[in-house]
């Protein structure tokens, strides 16, 4: 017979304001095996926890129910509390009477109280069936993986490497640097983006603790905290990195020219290329889709009739160290790591979905990031801001905010966070480049909450003389050389029409392509847009719900550079807190086989997604199932697959769940 103690938390007025605590306590007194009932103003406070510990000792309690907030909130806290009083930490059950009761039934106090009583009754019935569970120590790989080599990933990798732990940094593009490398200057200080970023990129490349894999992708992740096994696809560059001296002859001489992705199509690149001059590593890659020799090989392989295309191979002939390696092929690397930081970043919204802005038809309607490339001294125009259509200098520039942000029509209810600030920055820079430029900025609201941000907006208005117009744009169309921008000034309540030379769309932020698929293979949650979901939006902002996997940067939500850097560092600290432990503790809530009930049908094995079911031969020669506890993740799929209840799940056993169901009708 177990002695069960029930502690009902007021949570200030969060619970007590809706649920009648006295009635819940009175009902708990009558529940089977309950020998002690008490309430706490705040159970999670030190006073509350002390009261629970004292009651356990004084009342000789053997099991504890705490009726309070969600177990997702404080189960871990209270497990420690009861353990300090000498109880097994797993002899605790939480009745969630806040998130699932008082907060959602505030309109009906009587019903909320009745429900709270039932929730406590279920918890009491369940805890009576709890068993003491014991953790085990397991080893871990003291190495981290960072996915994404933008500023967030770079920061995380450097912080962990500087703490003395080996780090693998995987970047999909041929270079690290991410979106920040494309920016000209950064708000609100106007420091040159590449001047502050490049040294960090070089530091990554030269760091003895960092293995940098660019042009590579994470294909699959298996395992669990401390013991992940990662498959990384290293794509073939067709260039031998050990021979290449980064002289640049290959890409200068390559005859094939295609629009450069890095410059958003505003300038050309060769088929063998580095995305930009300061790329890290500065090893060119051959773009297989465009290389003439590859096309020639494919033509020959198809065995088609007709004139063969040229073989080209100019890069191969001209390369001084003979670094071109046509035989190089994609490779799959398998790495073991203990913690993972996901920093997969963002891409910009596809503005061509807006028909009213020309759907991409007008060359002089460009995006904010295209303007960054035009402003950049290392950009396609070497810093001359010119119109893509005719190369003239624009004098009237209109900015359109919230393109793909705060727009339910496009399925984008959220704010992209950085657009207000970068529009202001670009207006200031345009004025610096050419004092004759007049900028008009159409906005919905000005979001300038960061340090020095509001002042920066004022600077755009006062120094750069940018004219801010509150309202949406209804239509843009070409009229001769001008772009006519029609909109509304909602403050004056009248239509506006501006004849512009250049229109800049402040396109919003969305998760990188492939982020969802990556999240799926990592088993971490993502929201409807594909942004990764934090373990807790306020208190665990850089942790995923999966232990050992951490998040940073715009993979979580739109963010600016200081925010991303802070998250990179924060995720690094969280990962280091895993890696620096001598060993990890296993979760004891795993499956277990009753050898007397098992008939060896292995339905469990067929259901298990983690290969956690092995077979063993008993002394009487029967082959039955056995759980490999280090692989079991505790999902309980095997339990549902087992008709004979030979399989059970510790912590969520058939007995425990059945007790909860039965309690509802007792």
């Amino acid at each position: 017979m177990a002695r069960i103690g029930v502690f009902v938390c007021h949570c200030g007025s969060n619970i007590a304001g809706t649920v009648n605590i006295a009635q819940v306590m009175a009902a708990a007194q009558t529940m089977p095996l309950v020998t002690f009932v008490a309430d706490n103003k705040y159970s999670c406070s030190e006073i509350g926890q002390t009261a629970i510990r004292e009651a356990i000792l004084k009342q000789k309690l053997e099991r504890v129910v705490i009726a309070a907030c969600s177990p997702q909130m404080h189960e871990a806290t209270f497990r420690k509390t009861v353990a300090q009083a000498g109880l097994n930490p797993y002899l605790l059950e939480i009745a969630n009477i806040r998130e699932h009761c008082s907060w959602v039934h505030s309109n009906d106090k009587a019903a909320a109280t009745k429900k709270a009583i039932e929730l406590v009754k279920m918890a009491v019935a369940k805890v009576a069936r709890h068993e003491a569970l014991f953790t085990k120590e397991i080893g871990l790989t003291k190495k981290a993986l960072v996915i994404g080599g933008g500023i967030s990933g770079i920061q995380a990798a450097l912080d962990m490497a500087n703490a003395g732990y080996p780090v693998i940094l995987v970047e999909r593009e041929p270079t690290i640097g991410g979106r920040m490398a494309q920016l000209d200057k950064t708000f609100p200080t106007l420091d040159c983006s590449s001047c502050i970023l490049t040294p960090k990129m070089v530091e990554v490349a030269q760091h003895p603790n960092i293995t940098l894999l660019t042009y590579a992708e994470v294909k699959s992740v298996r395992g669990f905290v401390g013991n992940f096994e990662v498959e990384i696809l290293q794509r073939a560059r067709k260039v031998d990195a050990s021979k290449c001296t980064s002289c640049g002859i290959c890409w200068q001489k390559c005859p094939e020219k295609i629009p450069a992705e890095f410059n958003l199509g505003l300038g050309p690149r060769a088929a063998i290329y580095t995305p930009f001059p300061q790329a890290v590593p500065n090893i060119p890659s051959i773009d297989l889709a465009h290389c003439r020799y590859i096309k020639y090989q494919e033509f020959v392989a198809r065995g088609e009739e007709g004139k063969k295309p040229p073989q080209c191979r100019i890069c191969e002939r001209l390369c001084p160290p003979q670094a071109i390696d046509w035989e190089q092929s994609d490779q799959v690397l398998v790495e073991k790591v203990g913690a993972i930081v996901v920093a997969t970043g963002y891409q910009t919204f596809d503005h061509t979905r807006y028909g009213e802005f020309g759907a991409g038809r007008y060359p002089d309607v460009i995006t904010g990031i295209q303007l960054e490339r035009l402003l950049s001294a290392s950009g396609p125009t070497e810093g001359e801001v010119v119109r893509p259509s005719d190369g003239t200098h624009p004098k009237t520039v209109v900015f359109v905010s919230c393109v793909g942000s705060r727009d339910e029509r496009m399925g984008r209810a959220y704010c992209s966070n950085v657009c207000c600030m970068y529009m202001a920055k670009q207006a200031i820079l345009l004025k610096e480049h050419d004092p004759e430029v007049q900028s008009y900025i159409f906005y919905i609201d000005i979001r300038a909450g960061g340090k020095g941000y509001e002042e920066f907006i004022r600077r755009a208005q006062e120094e750069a003389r940018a004219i801010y117009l509150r309202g949406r744009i209804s239509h843009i169309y070409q009229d001769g050389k001008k772009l006519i921008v029609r909109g509304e000034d909602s403050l004056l309540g009248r239509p506006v029409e501006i004849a512009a030379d250049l229109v800049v769309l402040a396109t919003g932020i969305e998760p990188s392509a492939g982020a969802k698929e990556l999240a799926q293979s990592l088993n971490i949650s993502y929201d409807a847009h594909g942004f990764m979901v934090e373990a807790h939006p306020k208190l665990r902002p850089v942790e995923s719900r999966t232990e050992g996997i951490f998040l940073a940067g715009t993979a979580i939500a739109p963010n600016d550079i200081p925010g991303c850097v802070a998250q990179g560092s924060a995720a690094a600290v969280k990962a280091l807190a895993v890696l620096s432990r001598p060993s990890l503790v296993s979760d004891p809530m795993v499956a277990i086989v009753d050898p007397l009930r098992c008939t060896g049908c292995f339905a469990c094995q067929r259901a298990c997604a983690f290969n956690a079911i092995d077979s063993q031969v008993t002394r009487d020669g029967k082959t039955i199932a056995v759980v490999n506890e280090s692989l079991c993740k505790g999902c309980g799929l095997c339990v549902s697959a087992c008709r004979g209840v030979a399989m059970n799940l510790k912590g969520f056993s058939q007995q425990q769940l059945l007790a909860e169901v039965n309690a509802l009708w007792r």
Partner: protein
Amino acid sequence: MNQAIRDKAKELLASGAVSCVIGYDVGSDGINARPFFAYTEEEADGLAFDQTCTHNLVKYLIDRAGKATAIVVKPCDARALTVLINEKQVKREEVFIIGAVCHGIIESTWGQKGSDLQGRCQTCTQHTPLVYDLLVGEPMAEPTPKAPLDHRAATLANMSVAERAAFWAEQFQRCLRCNACRQVCPGCYCAECFVDQLDPEWVGIRIDLPEKWLWNTIRAFHLAGRCVGCDECQRVCPVNIPLGLLNHKLEEEVATLFDFRPGVKADVPAPLETFKKDEKLGIGE
């Protein structure tokens, strides 16, 4: 046919290839077949097969694990055997399968031979077992169903929910909880059936409608995607609960939803042990 079975049985027993042949002999009423275990060549002379061989014998193989055994199977029994092999209860290499070409089993009572085919045999589409080591009897063209399913299935489908509930309450009310349906079922081989378990206690001890309802519901569900439709459960039910109706309902659901017939293929998981990522099942959508 009988001779072919006896010859093979003798040969297998003589050579030591098997230590037992499980089949049928003529029962004590001189008419109806009964299960028969031949351990010697002499005993093998008793083996016989005719249209009264209603029993599904494959369940006996589970207790013969580790000992080579020959068994006489009808097409439906062969499907049940494949299920047991898939579920690792029987090792294929330990069994010599004597497949009997089956013309259907007739309704028969003690001491009296009937003339009508059993309901399950009227809808059956197999004369020849899908798996065997030796086939006895003359192979023939596979039949087309001779009669519709139990007419009550269609009637039930057209009933209102309340009427269906009332129909089953009437049926289950008769249940004695004798568990004969389970004992005879080749798919029911759990070491301790959920209905017998005291911890967890799924089904209470009362012989009361809710407990009978739970037992009969879960018995049927545990066979979803596994029941081969041999209808042995229904045959042995002392109070004539139409258990086959439930089994067939699930058999048809599984066939429609997952394009799956139990016991047809070896080495494929039962539909409730697997999934397809992109399937649309009309739930959770």
